């Protein structure tokens, strides 16, 4: 895993053996660049790269590549997300070449939430490729310098290839094998679904380590601090693939009025401490949803600052 494939900061940090910290920033529901800049500004120098979501939960937003470019101009390294729901393979390849040409060096390949959850549930979904095949596509274009039809690419895209995995979706015993499939297809780093059920995650990581997967790819543990009880209950009930144990909700309930957010952060800090010591974990993917301004504080308290310069 030592040779640099993309030259991205995230790739360098991970390959130098540092414990990585990545963040996330959702593009605005409009062309409001200032709002995006304001949110992203909190992350400058605090994380190694920032995921830029692609119409997350199937709600239309500024495109991921455009928002990634704005971040790049701010001196923030983006992790360009792409879902399979909204593009066929032609559009995918065009955007892969486009983002690489603009200097974007990380890409996360995802299936995408079903459009039923979004604000245009009457739309047609694409799914020409699935996330596994998208990973394979990026690797083929980058490493073989070829399109899937065998035609040569004049200048190959340079991207560090990422994927997601959700250890909390059934069938549990299959998840680690699906992770292995993604790695074989070309995934070099993994950002997991938000983790709340620590028992299940420990079991997942044990299996991944037993299979040696942590030696073939960098696994970043997904952490999303709970802001409110409402958020915790909503995630437990309505967000696909989320596993929020009743014990965590009870703990947040017990925090008392005005103290839930701090309790949520406290839980996240405890998680990060455990992940630092957990075999096979190469870093944290901190998704502070619409709470970007809290990331510097969380990173500081988790003793993850300053970020390494590589």
């Amino acid at each position, binding site marked *: 895993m030592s040779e640099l494939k993309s030259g991205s900061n995230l790739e360098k940090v991970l390959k130098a053996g540092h414990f990585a910290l990545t963040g996330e920033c959702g593009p605005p529901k409009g062309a409001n660049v200032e709002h995006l800049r304001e949110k992203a500004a909190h992350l400058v120098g605090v994380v190694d790269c920032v995921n830029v979501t692609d119409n997350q939960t199937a709600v239309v937003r500024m495109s991921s590549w455009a928002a990634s470019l704005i971040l790049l101009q701010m001196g923030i390294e983006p992790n360009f997300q792409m879902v399979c729901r909204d593009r066929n393979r032609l559009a995918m390849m065009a955007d892969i070449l486009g983002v690489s040409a603009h200097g974007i060096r990380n890409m996360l390949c995802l299936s995408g939430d079903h459009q039923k959850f979004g604000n245009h549930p009457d739309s047609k979904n694409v799914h020409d490729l699935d996330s*596994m095949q998208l990973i394979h596509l990026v690797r083929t274009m980058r490493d073989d310098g070829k399109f899937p039809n065998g035609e040569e690419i004049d200048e190959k895209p340079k991207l560090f290839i990422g994927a997601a995995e959700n250890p909390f*979706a059934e069938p549990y015993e299959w998840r680690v094998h699906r992770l292995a499939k993604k790695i074989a297809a070309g995934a070099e780093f993994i950002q997991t679904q938000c983790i709340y059920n620590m028992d299940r995650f420990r079991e997942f990581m044990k299996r991944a380590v037993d299979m040696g997967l942590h030696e073939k790819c960098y696994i970043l543990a997904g952490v999303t601090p709970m802001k409110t009880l409402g958020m915790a209950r909503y995630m437990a009930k309505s967000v696909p693939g989320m596993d929020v144990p009743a014990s965590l909700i009870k703990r947040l309930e017990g925090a008392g009025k005005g103290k839930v957010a701090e309790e949520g952060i406290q839980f996240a800090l405890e998680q990060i401490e455990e992940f630092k010591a957990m075999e096979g974990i190469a870093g944290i993917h901190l998704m502070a949803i619409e709470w970007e301004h809290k990331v510097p504080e969380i990173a500081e308290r988790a003793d993850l600052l300053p970020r390494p310069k590589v």
Partner: protein
Amino acid sequence: MIVGKQKPLEEIWDLVKGYGKILVFGCNTCVAVCHEGGNKEAEILGSLLRMKAKHKEVNIDIKDGGIERQCEHEYFEKAAGDIEGADAVLSIACGAGVQFLGEKFPHKPVLPGLNTTFIGVVDAPGEFSERCAMCGDCILHLTGGICPITRCSKSIMNGPCGGCNQGSCEISSDVPCGWYLIYERLKGQGRLELIHAYIPAKNWVTSRDGGPRKQVREDMKQEKQTAEG
């Protein structure tokens, strides 16, 4: 078989109300099995429309009829008179039948009285569910006899995705996750190795993406020519 569902009566009424003579025309094969588009259903729909016309005080002559299959030439002969005698035909065949009728009687307005829903099975009396998306390149041998194109809401080839929730699809707890079913089936058969393998990008040329599809049996074509010759 092809499953269909009659359009709501109000919608059908809006389609027919401007014509003087209407023929409600059933198709007695696939869509008769789901009790939506057969000749019996044409008779019932005809009665409902006559009542509607009476209630609305609109003067329409509404006849009903039907044939065995609206997707083959040979069955139309006996109904040609009824079809020619109507100002418009309300067909409750599948979309193929409606179009074929239109091709055979190009001067006759043809109205769809049924929505073609899917290719499916009869789960229980009155219950039907989808099984085949007609992609034209079957991979059921790789997926335990369960189709990921049809049964997965995202038609993914290397599932299940992270939205599988207690065996259900993320879109609804009433929809089983297709890939969960595939996993359980293959596990039961001791053949999980089939999905450990990466399934490459699908060639959608054989699906609708390749344009309207056509197939020709050369042997049968020749037989016909010989017979004619």
